[in-house]
């Protein structure tokens, strides 16, 4: 495929789009990992929300 004389602009646009999407995905995945770890730590310490305790009592 010949992208003509403006190949640099076309490739740069696609690289920018990929970088922005990759940044978004990485940020969301990192947050998920970080928050899951924090919730696991709370659970290990026996600290639970009232609704969590209520569900346990029902069981």
């Amino acid at each position, binding site marked *: 495929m010949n992208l003509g004389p*403006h190949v640099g602009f076309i490739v740069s646009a696609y690289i920018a789009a990929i970088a922005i999407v990759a940044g978004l995905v990485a940020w969301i995945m990192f947050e998920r990992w970080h928050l899951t770890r924090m919730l696991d730590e709370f659970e290990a310490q026996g600290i639970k929300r009232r609704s969590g305790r209520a569900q346990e009592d029902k069981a």
Partner: protein
Amino acid sequence: MRLTDLANPSRFLALTDRILPWLAVATLLAFAFGISQAYFAPDDYQQGATVKIMFIHVPAAWLGTFAWILMSIAGLGTLVWRHPLADVAAKAAAPIGAAFTLMCLVTGSLWGRPMWGTYWVWDARLTSVLVLFLMYLGVIALWRTIEDPTRAARVVAVLTLVGAINIPIIKFSVDWWNTLHQPASVLRLGGSTIHPAILVPLIVMLIAFTLLFLTLHLAAMRNEIMRRRVRTLLIMQADAATSL
């Protein structure tokens, strides 16, 4: 499951855990198809190969405005119905909307330089999209400034609804004022002016980007619910420490 059951964050989390993998796969498949279609799409008779930038620029512009519309609907949900997930949806959409608006601005500049001879011009369309990006940054800053999420949600909802006035300005700016930016060519009365050979890949890319947005938004909403649980537990931990 009734629709109202989704108002329960735990049920919503269970549902997103089931939906997200399928949505992610659908997004990847749509992008694989869309990018192959874009790759083989013919050059424009005037713009040459630079028309390929349109396949990312137009979906980014669509999602930048769509995210604000979604935040406005969520804002109504917060202010009128006090829906438990409305402010979660609004907060999760803001950074994603900002990212797509930034993508629209960057790809637009890179398209503008070879076609218009400049990266930027202060015409109505470009300026109103820049204002949208700045409003996203303002909303994100506001969420971070007000510590209580319920209070923050109400303030942000008002700002979002006021800011929604910018959406029709963006859409019709090319009709109301003389702009360097081209007029609407996809969604317009009288039908699209784009040849099907280019329009079909564009629509596929629009679908792929929309699926990507839904995937990211659901994942970000899940994170926000978890963040609020962490906040509650931190407060409980602090209360327990002070009562000792």
